[in-house]
């Protein structure tokens, strides 16, 4: 067994000189920058959108090569730790990472920093120091998104009535911020009473539907509803439909899914607050490249949220946010 290690060590020793071979990509242009983009998983549409944004940056910024690689199993923290370590040892020029865990990914990110490989964090936070452990943090300003939804809902309700908040899940940082932003915005309408029994929708559409039904049973006189993510919005939609309230009560949700887009078109959902993962992927890669090319990079970037209503859903910009044409963006046939 020691010999195995010895073989690996020996082979690494004798291959060292190849390191110094100049890397050129034809025509004497300098080798392209290899940027690894690490999502939390590779199959969800959200991460495919991030991929599309990264690809867009690859096309626009010359001499950049993107490798999109997630943990072999979706949402596996251990495999994401291993993946980042391997990217460091493979000497990628920079790493763009959406950490699955704010603590577990800190050690491999520090390993990258020690190897002088810049890391850009996107989507979710890391317990490190920006400017020291990583270059920049690029994410949705969730609190602003919640506030935007709260303001719009208050207006739709004419500044009076009862508004119901179905929270998402305990310990989920991003949705907690959305809820906080929403609650603060609603406080700006003195005529609106907030019904916030601290009920949580739970992780899936089914649990959300159940929680929503229970809430609507005890609060049948509500004048508006807000839900902070896709599954809670969908569960609430089903519950409103079952009570024949869909389309009659102003209802704002968060994130996009095909069923929610249909409901928006049918007038059952008043508005959807959506993030911009394509822009997130684009900005994160651009930040990494700018940093490598010696240009200053903002330590914190907000990729923005948009509030989309039935009237605006067919504008090119909003259409692209609701249902992006990922196939053409990713350049696959």
């Amino acid at each position, binding site marked *: *067994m020691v010999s195995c290690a010895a073989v690996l060590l020996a*082979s*690494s020793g004798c291959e060292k000189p190849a390191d110094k*071979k100049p890397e050129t990509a034809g025509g004497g242009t300098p080798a392209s920058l290899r940027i690894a983009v690490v999502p939390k998983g590779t199959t969800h549409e959200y991460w495919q959108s991030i991929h599309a944004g990264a690809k867009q940056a690859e096309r626009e910024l010359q001499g950049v090569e993107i490798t999109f690689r997630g943990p072999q199993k979706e949402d*596996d923290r251990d495999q994401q730790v*291993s993946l980042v370590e391997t990217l460091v040892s493979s000497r990628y020029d920079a790493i763009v990472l959406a950490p699955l*865990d704010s*603590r577990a990914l800190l*050690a491999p990110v520090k390993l990258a920093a020690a190897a002088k490989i810049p890391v850009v964090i996107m989507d979710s936070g890391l317990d490190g120091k920006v400017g020291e452990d990583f270059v920049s943090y690029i994410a949705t300003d969730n609190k602003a998104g919640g506030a935007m939804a709260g303001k719009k809902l208050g207006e739709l309700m004419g500044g009076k009535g009862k508004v119901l908040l179905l929270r998402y899940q305990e310990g989920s940082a991003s949705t907690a911020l959305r809820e906080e932003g929403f609650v603060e915005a609603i406080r700006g309408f003195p005529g609106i009473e907030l019904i916030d029994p601290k009920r949580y929708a739970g992780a899936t559409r089914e649990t959300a539907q159940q929680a929503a039904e229970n809430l609507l049973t005890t609060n049948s006189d509500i004048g508006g509803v807000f839900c902070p993510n896709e599954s809670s919005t969908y569960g609430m939609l089903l519950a409103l439909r079952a009570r024949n309230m869909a389309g009659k009560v102003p209802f704002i949700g968060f994130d996009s899914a095909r069923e929610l887009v249909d409901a928006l078109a049918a007038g059952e959902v008043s508005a959807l607050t959506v993030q911009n993962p394509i822009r997130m992927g684009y900005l994160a890669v651009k930040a990494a490249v700018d940093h490598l090319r010696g240009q200053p990079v903002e330590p914190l970037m907000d990729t923005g949220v948009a509030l989309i209503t039935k009237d605006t859903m067919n504008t090119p910009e909003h259409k692209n946010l609701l249902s992006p044409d990922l196939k053409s963006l990713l350049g696959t046939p």
Partner: protein
Amino acid sequence: MNRSGGVRTVLTSLAPALTLVAAVLLFWVIAPDRPLGLLDVRTILIQTVIVATVGLGMTLVIASGGIDLSVGSAVALSGVVAAKVMNADLGPDAAPWQPALALIAACGAGALCGAYNGLLHTLLGLPAFIVTLGTLGFYRGAAKWISDSSPVYAKAGWLSEWVAPIPSIPWLVVAPAVWLMLALAFGAAILMHRTVFGRHAVAIGSNEEAARRAGVPVRWVKLRVYAICGLCVGLAGVLQFARLGGSGDPTVQVGLELRAIAAVVIGGASLTGGVASIFGTLCGALLMALLDNRSTALGWPNYVQELLVGHIIIAAVALDRIRGRRLS
């Protein structure tokens, strides 16, 4: 056994190592501009540790004709136990030895899981496959239960030093956990081939009925085999806890059982029992980590690696069959 048979035995036992060397050379030929650096070797080795540590126990189980599908869940459970122990308030002087307590608790939890598997298997006479398929769900559920379904964050103390890819003591070259794994492998090889218990386990794997008639205490040996496997799993659990920067994650290592079994099979073991090699298992685990490293270094998409590993396992089993036919 004649002389040429002896040579053949040596060659077959070296096959996994030769495959590993061939893979290293192959990647060197494919991509000479992306050589294996020292850091690559360090990360490959540290990433092998969990699969290989579990693989050691699995080798013993498979040699005895059994299987343990619950190892991934038990690793998660032991990791959560380690985190819980680290979070216990034992006063200000506890810092130096609290990690040792967590280590012992996690190993204990793992050994209990293994012993429970062994008890169900031997007392109820149920196939190990079914028993451990059941406990796979049970241990995962237990991990989620005691952790309240979300990661338990704790300080890892000196345990984090064990799993740092670049050790803080330079002359160690690789992470202390790697040396621990090698020492364990050495111990496991002695246990399997040089002790009565080990020979009994292999004899049960070759022919359980014959072993029983020859006076081998089959149930007692099997129970210990599963408990020892569990001990390895518990150790892997505490290493997992440390590798996640001090978090006991109840959802981690889903599917570890398949990678551990793959390592054992690539290492030349027969799934019907009686034949297994500790050294081979280590090579199998290293080979998978090497593939992982290289496909990342070369920028291959995730699925390429899955396609490759799938066929390496198939090739390993095919070789095993051919070998089996020759011998018979």
